[in-house]
């Protein structure tokens, strides 16, 4: 197997890898995203660049991925979803991504268009994530598009997929992941999860079904009481553990802003360092840290489990 990216190199070498997340928005200058990418450099091997998260019509993730790589040197994991593009448009964007030096792509079905600010637009889903994965692998391995037409030039992409250990029944999710692996997925990143026991259950079931794919487990540090509360109430299917929520709720009463920040950082580290240490003992290939707007957590977190 050829290796095109640092992410895949680190995974293949068996390092416990960290990836981060960048979320460009409805904007044209990418100032904050570039700044965030700078801050994460050296701590994560690559960063996901979200594609219309929650079905909000934002700046193209392809353009953002390119500019992030170009301006900061941070390797991008270009997220690409099926909600907004048919197979032809996906192919065009993938060819463009190759030309622009993008080497990792995360193939996503994508949130339903009805969830975001273009709720009246047409949901496309000409392909789904498994079919998109299949198509990308065809492009990479055979140098042809979905219908066998020859592509001029190398297609150098690694394809990742999403998985959700919170899904109930878990078996449905595991079998779906099996399909994506069959389609050629090379790594998986999971939805946010706080329950390490559930993570172990997930790996155990993967094992019992003989599914082999490097998995980066997703975590979401909680920057403030507001973020924690919003997350707990609005992100369906994921709950912040009670104890963690209680500590953060208490910390919000600290009147001094700086002290409050320090306190919350400490609470996060108290929770996530043991979580990561435990995670390192599982077959997880790494951790995907979703800390948009909270880059300061990443250095102490990644250093602690080196």
């Amino acid at each position: 197997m050829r290796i095109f990216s640092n992410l895949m190199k680190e995974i293949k070498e068996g390092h416990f890898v960290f990836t981060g997340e960048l979320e460009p928005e409805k904007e044209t200058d990418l100032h904050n995203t570039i700044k965030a990418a700078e801050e994460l450099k050296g701590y994560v091997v690559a960063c996901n660049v979200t594609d219309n998260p929650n079905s909000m019509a934002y700046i193209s993730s392809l353009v953002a991925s390119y500019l992030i790589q170009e301006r900061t040197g941070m390797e991008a994991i270009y997220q690409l979803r099926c909600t907004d593009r048919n197979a032809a448009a996906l192919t065009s964007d993938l060819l463009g991504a190759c030309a622009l030096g993008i080497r990792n792509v995360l193939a996503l079905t994508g949130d339903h268009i009805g969830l975001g600010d273009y709720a009246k637009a047409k949901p496309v889903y000409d392909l789904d994530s498994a079919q998109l994965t299949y198509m990308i692998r065809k492009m990479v391995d055979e140098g042809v598009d979905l219908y066998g037409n020859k592509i001029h030039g190398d297609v150098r992409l690694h394809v990742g997929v999403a998985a959700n250990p919170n899904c109930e029944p878990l078996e449905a999710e595991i079998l779906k992941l099996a399909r994506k692996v069959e389609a050629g997925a090379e790594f998986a990143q999971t939805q946010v999860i706080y329950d390490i026991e559930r993570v172990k259950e997930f790996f155990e079931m993967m094992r019992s079904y003989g599914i082999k794919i490097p998995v980066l487990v997703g975590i979401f540090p909680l920057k403030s009481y507001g973020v924690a509360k919003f997350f707990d109430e609005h992100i369906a299917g994921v709950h912040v553990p009670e104890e963690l929520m209680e500590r953060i709720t208490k910390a919000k009463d600290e009147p001094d802003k700086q002290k409050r920040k320090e306190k919350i950082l400490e609470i996060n580290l108290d929770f996530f360092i043991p979580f990561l240490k435990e995670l390192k003992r599982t077959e997880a290939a790494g951790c995907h840290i979703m800390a948009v707007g909270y880059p300061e957590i990443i250095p102490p977190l990644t250093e602690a489990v080196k």
Partner: protein
Amino acid sequence: MIVTKEKPIDEILEYVEPYGKILVVGCEGCTHPPRGLREARNMAMTVSMGLKLRGKSVEVRSTSIAKQCDLYNCKVALEPQIGDAEAILTMACSIGVGALSTLFPDIPVFPAQNTVFMGVEDRESDTFKEMCRACGDCLLGETFGICPIARCAKSLLNGPCGGPVDGMCEYKEYTNKCAWIEIYERAKKFNRLDLFKKLRLPRDRRLETPPRMLVGGELK
């Protein structure tokens, strides 16, 4: 059946207002929600009164035929009743509107219904549920009677997506069951997870791209 929902009366009146002689035609095909003779009569009365309120006196007749989606049927049953009608208002689904427009090219035909979907009826809860989108290559043999095209909000072939929570679909705020979780549950019950697990490759979208025709059994 083809499920319809009556159009707002003002929209209907706008359509037929310019005409002096209107024929309202019911359809006894798909029977629920009913849109047969009784409904055609009521509609004729409503239209006549509505237009009167707009200061117009018109002649509105009503009739009903068995199945407006059958051209032969329409010709035999309706042609003798057209008389001097200047406009037809049909109670049928949009297929009926198309059929009558084809058959009577010199008379404008207007719809009284919005055609919403093909589905089943649950009379107890007064609910109609979309069941099929006529994709042209039926998958129900692999999905235990639950159509992933019509019942999954993303029409996925390799579901579920990352969206279901407690078996409910992310679209419409978790008020509908996730079709793919249902498919999984049934496949498991029948000990056929092999079908659930199957990787389905991209479809040939030409099968579902309009306009479609079936000529002598061949899809054109």
